C-alpha cells in the first residue's frame, strides 16, 4: 500500500521481521532487572495496604470511611469512575483507532489493552467494596431465588453491573484474540520445555495458517466494531449513575458524551504515563516513537478541549436554566468549601493540556510525562468534584455537610494502584508488550526502511 513520504515512520531503525520479534520479546527473556524487583516490591506493599483497608471496611463497615448521611459516595465512586475512565484508552485505541485506520495504534494497543483490563479490575473492586453488605452482593445478579424477586432494571447501578461485566469480558476476549498469534511466536521462540508447554497451551494451537489469519483479521475487526460502541456505552452508563438522579450537579444531559470524552482523556494520560517509562525501560523506543507520543498528545488536546467545553456548557446552562438549585451547585463548586478541588480540576484538565498545542511541548517526553500526571490528577478531581461537591450541598441546607477521607479510604485507593502496577509488571514479564504480528504487518509500509522498499 502506498504511503505518502510526508508521513513519519512508525517504526524506527531499519528492522527486518526477525529483528522485530527479537526486540519485542527481549523484555520477557532472562532475569528481571533490579528496577523490576523494586517496582514490584513497592506496588506489592501498596496492595497489602489495600488489603488491610478492605478488611477494615468489610469487618467494621463503611463507617470506617469518611462518609455521612448527606455524602453517601466519595472516594469509592470517585475511584471507580477514575479507573473505569482509565480503562477506556485500551479499547479506544484498539477499536476506534482501528476503525479510523490509524496505523500508529499497532505499537501501543497491546499494552493499552492490558492496562484496560487491569484498570477495569481495579474499577470493579469499588462498586463491590462500597456495598454496605458486600457478602450479599450477589443480590445484584438476576438469579432465580426463593422470593421470586428479581433486580431493578431501572437502576443505573444495575446497568453498570451489565456494562462493566460485558466490557471486562469483551475486552479480555479482544485482547486475548489479538494475543494469540504473538503467543505462537513466544511459544516458538521459547527455549525451556515448560515454557514451551505453557505458551503452547496458551497459544490455542496457532500456526499462522492463511485461513486462520484471514478469519482472525475479520474477528478482530468485528470485535473492534462491537467494542467501539461498547466503550462508549460503558462510560455513558457510568455517567447515568449520576445523570439520572435529581441532584443538582449530577442531573445534566451532557454527561454521557462528556464522560466518554473524559474517560478517553484520562485513559490516554495513563497510557502515556506508563509507556513513557516502559519504552525506555524495555528498550522499545524504536517502536513507541516520539511520533506515537505526539499522536496521543493530540488525542489529549482534543478530548481535553471537549471536556473543557462541557465544563463551561454546564456552568453556563446552570445559570441559563434559572433553577436556583442548579445555580447554587455550580457557584458552590467554584467558590464553596471544595473550590480548591474544582480549581485543581480546571487547571489540570482544561489549562495544562492546552500546552500541547505547541509542538515543542507535545514532542518533549519529560513535559508529556508531567502533563500526563497532571491529567491523571485532574480527572480524579473531576470525579471528586462531581460526586462530593454536588452531594455535600444539595437541596435542603439543613442537611449540608462536609466530607473528609479516612485512612481506610486512602488505603483502598493506594491498594488498587498497587494491584494495577503489580499486574502491569507481571504482564511485562509474561506477554509481549507490543503486538508483534501487527507491527510486522505495517513494517513495510510505515517502517523506517520503507523508502528502500517503495522506490516508485
Amino acid at each position: 500500500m502506498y504511503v505518502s513520504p510526508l508521513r513519519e515512520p512508525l517504526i524506527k531503525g531499519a528492522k527486518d521481521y526477525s529483528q522485530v520479534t527479537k526486540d519485542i520479546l527481549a523484555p520477557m527473556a532472562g532475569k528481571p532487572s533490579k528496577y523490576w524487583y523494586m517496582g514490584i516490591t513497592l506496588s506489592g506493599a501498596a496492595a497489602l495496604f489495600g488489603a488491610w483497608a478492605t478488611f477494615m471496611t468489610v469487618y467494621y463497615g463503611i463507617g470506617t470511611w469518611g462518609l455521612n448521611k448527606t455524602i453517601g459516595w466519595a472516594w469509592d465512586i470517585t475511584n471507580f469512575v477514575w479507573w473505569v475512565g482509565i480503562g477506556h484508552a485500551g479499547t479506544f485505541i484498539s477499536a476506534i483507532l482501528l476503525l479510523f485506520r490509524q496505523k500508529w495504534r499497532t505499537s501501543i494497543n497491546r499494552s493499552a489493552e492490558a492496562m484496560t483490563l487491569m484498570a477495569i479490575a481495579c474499577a470493579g473492586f469499588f462498586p463491590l467494596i462500597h456495598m454496605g453488605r458486600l457478602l450479599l452482593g450477589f443480590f445484584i445478579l438476576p438469579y432465580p431465588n426463593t422470593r421470586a424477586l428479581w433486580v431493578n432494571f431501572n437502576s443505573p447501578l444495575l446497568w453498570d453491573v451489565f456494562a462493566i461485566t460485558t466490557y471486562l469480558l469483551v475486552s479480555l476476549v479482544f485482547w486475548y484474540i489479538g494475543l494469540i498469534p504473538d503467543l505462537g511466536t513466544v511459544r516458538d521462540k521459547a527455549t525451556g520445555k515448560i515454557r514451551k508447554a505453557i505458551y503452547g497451551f496458551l497459544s490455542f494451537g496457532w500456526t499462522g495458517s492463511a485461513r486462520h489469519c484471514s478469519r482472525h483479521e475479520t474477528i478482530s475487526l468485528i470485535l473492534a466494531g462491537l467494542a467501539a460502541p461498547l466503550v462508549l456505552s460503558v462510560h455513558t452508563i457510568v455517567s447515568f449513575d449520576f445523570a439520572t438522579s435529581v441532584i443538582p450537579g449530577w442531573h445534566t444531559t451532557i454527561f454521557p458524551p462528556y464522560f466518554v470524552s473524559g474517560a478517553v482523556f484520562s485513559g490516554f494520560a495513563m497510557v502515556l504515563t506508563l509507556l513513557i517509562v516502559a519504552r525506555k525501560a524495555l528498550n522499545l523506543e524504536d517502536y513507541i516513537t516520539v511520533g506515537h507520543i505526539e499522536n496521543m498528545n493530540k488525542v489529549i488536546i482534543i478530548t481535553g478541549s471537549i471536556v473543557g467545553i462541557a465544563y463551561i456548557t454546564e456552568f453556563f446552562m446552570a445559570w441559563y436554566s434559572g433553577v436556583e438549585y442548579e445555580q447554587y451547585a455550580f457557584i458552590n463548586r467554584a467558590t464553596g468549601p471544595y473550590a480548591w478541588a474544582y480549581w485543581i480540576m480546571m487547571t489540570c484538565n482544561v489549562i495544562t493540556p492546552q500546552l500541547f498545542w505547541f509542538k515543542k511541548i507535545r514532542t518533549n517526553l519529560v513535559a508529556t510525562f508531567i502533563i500526563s500526571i497532571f491529567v491523571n490528577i485532574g480527572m480524579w478531581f473531576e470525579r471528586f468534584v462531581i460526586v462530593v461537591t454536588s452531594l455535600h450541598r444539595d437541596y435542603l441546607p439543613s442537611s449540608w455537610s462536609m466530607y473528609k477521607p479516612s485512612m481506610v479510604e486512602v488505603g483502598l485507593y493506594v491498594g488498587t494502584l498497587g494491584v494495577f502496577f503489580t499486574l502491569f509488571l507481571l504482564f511485562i514479564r509474561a506477554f509481549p508488550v507490543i503486538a508483534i504480528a501487527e507491527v510486522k504487518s505495517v513494517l513495510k509500509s510505515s517502517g523506517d526502511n520503507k523508502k528502500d522498499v517503495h522506490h516508485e
Partner: protein
Amino acid sequence: MENKYFKSLEDLRIDTSRDLEEQSAGDKSFILKMQRESAALPPTSRRDFLKAFGFTIASAAVASSCEQPVRKAIPFLIQPEGIIPGKASWYASTFYDGTDYCSVLVKVRDGRPIKIEGNNLSSITKGGTNARTQASVLNLYDNARLKNPSKNGSEISWETADAEIGGKLKEISARQGKMVLLTPTIISPSTAAVITDFVTAFPSCDHIQYDVLSAAGMLRANQDSFGAPFIPSYHFEKADLIVSFDADFLGSWLSPVEYTKQYSQKRKLTDGQRSMSRHIHFEGAMSLTGSNADHRVQMRAGHQKFVLVNLLSALKKLNGESSPEVQGTNHDVQELAAELFRNKGKSLVVSGSNNKDEQLLVNEINMLLGNYGHTIDTDVRLRSRFGFDSRLTTLVEEMNSGAVKALIMMDVNPLYDYPQAAAFGAGLKKVELSVALSVVSDETSAAVSYICPDHHYLEAWNDFEYKTGFYSLSQPAIRPIFNTRAAQESLLRWSGNPQEYRTYLNSYWEQNIYSKAPGFTSFTSFWNSKLHDGVFESGEKSAVAVAYTPVAAMEAIARIAATKPEDSIDLVLYANVSVGTGKHANNPWLQELPDPVTKVCWDNYLMISPRLAEEMNVVDEQLVNVNGKLTLPVVVQPGQEYKTVAVALGYGRQQTGVPANGVGQNAYTLMTFDGDNRSYLLSGVSLALEAGNYPLARTQSHHSMEGRELIRETSLEAYLEDPQSGNEARVELKKHMKTMYPEAKFDGLHWGMAIDLNACTGCNACVVACSSENNVPVVGKEQVIASREMHWIRIDRYYKGDEHNPEVVRQPVMCQHCDNAPCENVCPVAATTHSNEGINQMAYNRCIGTRYCANNCPYKVRRFNFLDYTGADTFKGNEYDPAEMTTDLRRLVLNPDVTVRAKGVIEKCSFCVQRIQEKKLVAKTENRELRDGEVVPACAQSCAAEAIVFGNLNDKNSKVSQYFASERNYHLLEEIHTLPSVGYLTKVKNKTV
C-alpha cells in the same frame, strides 16, 4: 403464574379473610389457621426445585449473611395469662418525675413495656407528650438501675435493710434526734398520707420538698399577693395575647405539655379557625418558646424586673394611675402596654423568673388586666413545684452542724443538682443514717450508707393529683425487673406498717377519693374504671379561697425602682427539652436529641450572642471559662441578646452510668441564690477565653434557607386577605407540573401526612417517639459529629433575616413517601419500592447498602448503618455502641414489630407501616373499613400540638385530605416533581408586616 409466595402482607390478608367470614374466631385461632394453611401449600414443582437449587448454591454466602437469630430464644412452656404473642397490651399510667407530668398509656409486648403514648382521657395533657415522657420507657431498662438493696456498697437483703434502718430510726427517734425525709414535691395523695404516717411514727422527722426547677419565687409572691402559696392554672388557649418574660412554657416552665396543647389550639388555622393568639416573648437567651413567638424581644436577662416595672407603669398610665419608671433598659413598652390594654381579660402575662418581686409585678399586671378568672385560674392549682428553696438551705446548715441524725432521700439527687453540692456532701457525712430511695444509681446514692432501690414508675403503683381535682394513677406494666421495692412501701415498713403499698393505695382511694365520684355502684367498679382510664377528674376546686392585695407589689416596685439596670454579662441557666434537670441524663435517646434551638446534642455549651462573640473573638467550639468555675465550648447563637449568655443544666453527671457520665459540664455549680430562692440567672458573669477547642455534635450545620422556598410563611393579616398568601409558588408550579408518564394511581388506600407548620413548636417529642417505635439506633457523639445520626424524623431549623435578631422557622422532615421517588428508581436490588398504598417501603433484608438511594434523595432522609450500631451484624466483636444500647437490658425496649437493622443497611421513616398493618388487621377482623384517624404514626401520636395528621388521601373526607386541599398546603421541593405524600401547611405568624 401461580402465586405461591407471599409477596406482601396483602396476599396474606386476602387468603385469610375468607376464613374469618366462616368463623369469627379469636386472634389466636386465626394465627393457628394461618400456619396450617401455609403448611398446606401445594407440593414443589420442578421450578421450585430449581429455585431451591439456586438457593443452595448461594447458601455459603447466605449462611454468612443472614440476620442472626434472636440470641436467647426461649419459648413459653406455660403461656402466661393475658399475653398473646404478637399482640400488645396497653396500660394507663402516669409519668411524673418531680418536674414533668404526663398521663400516659404504656404499650406492653410480651410482658415488656416498649412504648409510651399520651392518654387522650386526661384533660390536662390530652394525649400529648414531650420528649422526656416518650423516653421514660428506656429509663426502665437503664443499665445503671439499682438492682438490690445495699449497705455501703454491698448487697443486703430487704429484711436486713428493714431491720437495720427501722432499728436505727427507732433509736434516733427515741432520743428525739432530728430526722429528715427529703423528697421532690409530692403530688401523690396516698404517698403524702404515707409520709404523714411516717412523720406521725417518727415525730422528730421533718418532711422537706426539694424542687430542682424551683417555683419558690412564685409561691412566695402569691403568698404575699393572695395570702397563700400556690401556683395557679394558666389558660393559654383563652389568651388572645400572650406576653412571656423568659418563661419557656413550651419547653420547661411549670407544665409544658399542658401549655403546648393549649397554645397550639389557639395557633391553628385549620378547621375553619380564622384567628390566632399573638405571642410576644421577652428573653435574653434563645429558647424554644421564644423562637416560636410572633414577636421576640431581646431583653437582657437581668433587666426583666425593670421592664416589668416600666410595663406596669405604662399600663397604670393607661388606667389613669401612676407608677414609677426605671431608665436604662432600652425597651419601649408603651406599645406593648397599649396592646395588652386592648386585650384586657384576654391576655396572659407570665414570667419564668424565680424572683419574688418579679412575680409580684406579674401578678399586679395580670390583675390590672383582669386576667384572673379568665386566663388564670386560682381555684384549680398546680400541685407540683411546691418546694421552698430556703428549707434546703437550712437543712444543709443543720446537717453540717451535726443536728441531723437521719436523712432519707427519696427520688432526689442533691449531690448533683444542689448548687452547694459539696456542702451537702460534707453535711451528709455527719448524718448517722443516710438512706437513698432511688431508682437509678446517682451521685447521691453513691454517698449514702443505705440504698433501698425504688421501682421504676412502670413497675409501680402510684397515684397523682397534679392539679386540684385532677387525679391519675400508675400501675405496674411489668413485674419489677430487679430486687426493688416501692419507696412508699419502705416508708410504711419502717414506720411499722406491714401493708403493701398497693393495698394502702387502694384503701386510701376507697376512703378519700371514691366519695368524690358519683355514679359508681361499688368502689371496685370505680377503681377498675379509673385504673383503666388512668385518670379521674373530680371537678373539685381548691378549698382555700384567695383574695388579692396589691401592697406587696407596690413594695416590690419600690424595691426595684431603688436599683439601676447594670451593664454586665448575664448568665441564664436553663433546662432544655432533652435531659432537662439531668435526672434522665442517662437516657441515650435524650442525649442524642438535638436541641431545638442550637441543634447540638451530647453536650452543654455556652450560648453567646454573635456580637459578644465578635468582641471576644471567639467562634463555635472554642473554650471559654465562666466565673472561673466551668469551662465550656461556645455556641454562637443568633438572636441571643448581646450580653446574655446561657448554659443548659442537666449535664456533667459523674456517677450514674454510660452514657451520661462525663457528658458536658455540671452547670448547677454556677447556680446561686437570690434571697431565699434558687436563681436561674446570674448577673455580672466573667468570661475568660481558654486555650483549645472542644468539638460539639451538631445535627445541622447550615442555618440559612439560602432563599429557597422550603418553609413557606405568611402573616395572619395577609392570610386572612388571601389564604394562598405565602404559598403563591404552588399555584404557579401546579401549572408547570408536566410528566413523562402518568401518575401512579392507588386504589383503596393512599397514605398521606400533613404537617401544620403553624402548630409545630419543635419540641422534639416526635423524634424520641419515632426512635422508640422504630428501634432507631443511638450512635453516640462521635458519629453525630461525623453527621451520621440515625433519626428518621428531624426538625429542620432555619434562621431568617438579621443574624443578630433572626426569625426562627422549623420544619419536621421525614421520608416524604414520594409517588415519584428518586430513591426507588435507583436501587439495583429493588430493596426500596412503592407499595400499592403509596408508601415508599424499604426491605432491609434485601438492602445491600449501595447508598445510592440516600444520595438520590433530595430530602436526605435516608439513614445508613455505617457501623454495627445494633449488634445485628454477622461478625462478632465489631459492635459500635458507645451509648450501651445493645446490652441485654436495654434491648428489652426494642419493638418486636420492627426489624433491627444490621450494619450496612439503609433505613428510614416507614410511615409506621407496622401500625398501619396492625390497624388494617383489626379492621379486617371486625369486618369493616378503616376509620379516618385510626392509624396514628408514632410521631403524630406523640405530638402535643397535634401538628401531624395522617390518613388516607383517597378518602376525600379524611382530615389529611382536607389539609391537602387547603390553600396553605404545599409540598417540600415540589418543583422537582417528586410528588411527596407529605404536605406542609404554611406557617402563619401573627405579626404586623
